[in-house]
């Protein structure tokens, strides 16, 4: 068990290190996310009356787009430099690759969100301290990363590459988007934990189901 975890962490640290050295994905996705928020601000002409209505949607659409963008890179980068063959030659089972890649996508997304969140709250003039939002963001991002890792490996192996991921990713993450938007809406409009609970349940159910299913079918996506 410890050995298994160690292998997963090795892959995770490899990804983190290469991202830390190049900062290629994080910087561009971060800038992209901020630009999306700014564009939404023009699109909705949000004033203090409508902010509560549009803010949750803006936040999660931004995260969804940013998530697709960053997850597209996770396997395309590996593919371009022939690293994927190296990874597959590693004496580890395929699901170790999945968990390693999933955790690195998750952590990268969470880092990006940690920067985008305060900027979003400031630009939309919302209270800065919202710990409950962090829980929703964590669960929602885990949902994105669970299927995103599977599908980005799939997309990287096709001719269409960048186009393939959104087409297969968006329909599947609809429940995450609905539940996350609704939970965020309740937080911004001071709803209770009780009101939020059913949305959190959907997020948790989605995360658990798709982490298991994705880990199981991952081997079929990357085999040559």
């Amino acid at each position, binding site marked *: 068990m410890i050995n298994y975890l160690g292998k997963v962490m090795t892959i995770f640290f490899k990804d983190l290190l290469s991202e830390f050295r190049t900062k290629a994905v994080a910087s561009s996705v971060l800038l992209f996310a901020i630009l999306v928020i700014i564009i939404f601000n023009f699109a909705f002409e949000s004033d203090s009356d409508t902010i509560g209505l549009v803010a949750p949607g803006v936040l999660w659409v931004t995260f969804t787009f940013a998530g697709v963008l960053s997850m597209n890179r996770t396997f395309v980068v590996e593919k371009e430099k022939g690293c994927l063959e190296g990874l597959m030659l590693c004496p580890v089972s395929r699901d170790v690759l999945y968990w390693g890649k999933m955790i690195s996508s998750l952590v990268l997304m969470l880092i990006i969100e940690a920067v985008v969140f305060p900027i979003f709250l400031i630009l939309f003039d919302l209270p800065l301290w919202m710990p409950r939002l962090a829980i929703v963001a964590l669960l929602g991002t885990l949902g994105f990363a669970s299927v995103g890792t599977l599908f980005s490996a799939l997309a990287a192996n096709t001719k269409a590459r960048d186009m393939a991921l959104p087409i297969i990713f968006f329909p599947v993450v609809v429940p995450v988007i*609905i539940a996350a938007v609704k939970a965020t809406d309740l937080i911004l409009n001071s709803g209770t934990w009780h009101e939020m609970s059913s949305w959190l349940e959907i997020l948790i159910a989605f995360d658990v189901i798709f982490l298991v299913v994705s880990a199981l079918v991952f081997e079929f996506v990357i085999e040559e």
Partner: protein
Amino acid sequence: MKIRGSLRNNTLLGLGFALMMISLYLMFIYVPTEKGMGIIQRIFYFHVPLAWVAFLAFFVVFITSILYLWKRDTKWDTLAHASAEIGVVFTTLVLITGPIWARPEWGSWWTWDARLTSSLILWLTYIAYLLVRSFAEEEEKGARFAAVIGIVGFINVPIVYLSVNLWRTQHPPELVSDLEGSMLLTLLVSITTFTILYCLLIMRNVSLKSGIAEVKRLRGLLEE
């Protein structure tokens, strides 16, 4: 073998044709017009069987996708591919007949109700399923990728349904038990007819796909 196959085909074709005529008679002449909704309610006898067949088709895709990944026998992939195509056609018809009924009843073509939204997501997922095959460089790869989407997409349906249901719902619930005798009869006959139509279509589609594969194989032999 071939003669017996075509005999079975023709029997099913004859049965399907006879049943379709009976269904049409039941739908348009035999069954009384519903009191509240009027003539438009008759579309119900198309809409429900179409939805049933669409769901059946996607369920077949789910099962055959698992079998394909497990056994790696091309026949399962051919069956999955054929069923997915039929499922997409039938879902398209469901998405067309639904709004025709909804417009006079609800006063709007479309609402973001649980069943409507899940059907739409289902439709988008399986269009992606069909697209991914053409994205892949080799056919075997495309079959594997499609199978993964066939599995993940189907597991997702109940989660989508649950989350949208919690969000808002307007679609009339299944009132089969409340249906008047003649209406129930019409519905059941219609469902049987469309199920036979599905069987016919899938047999045709599978033999067409096997034919295409055979032609490709022969062409490969010629080029060698």
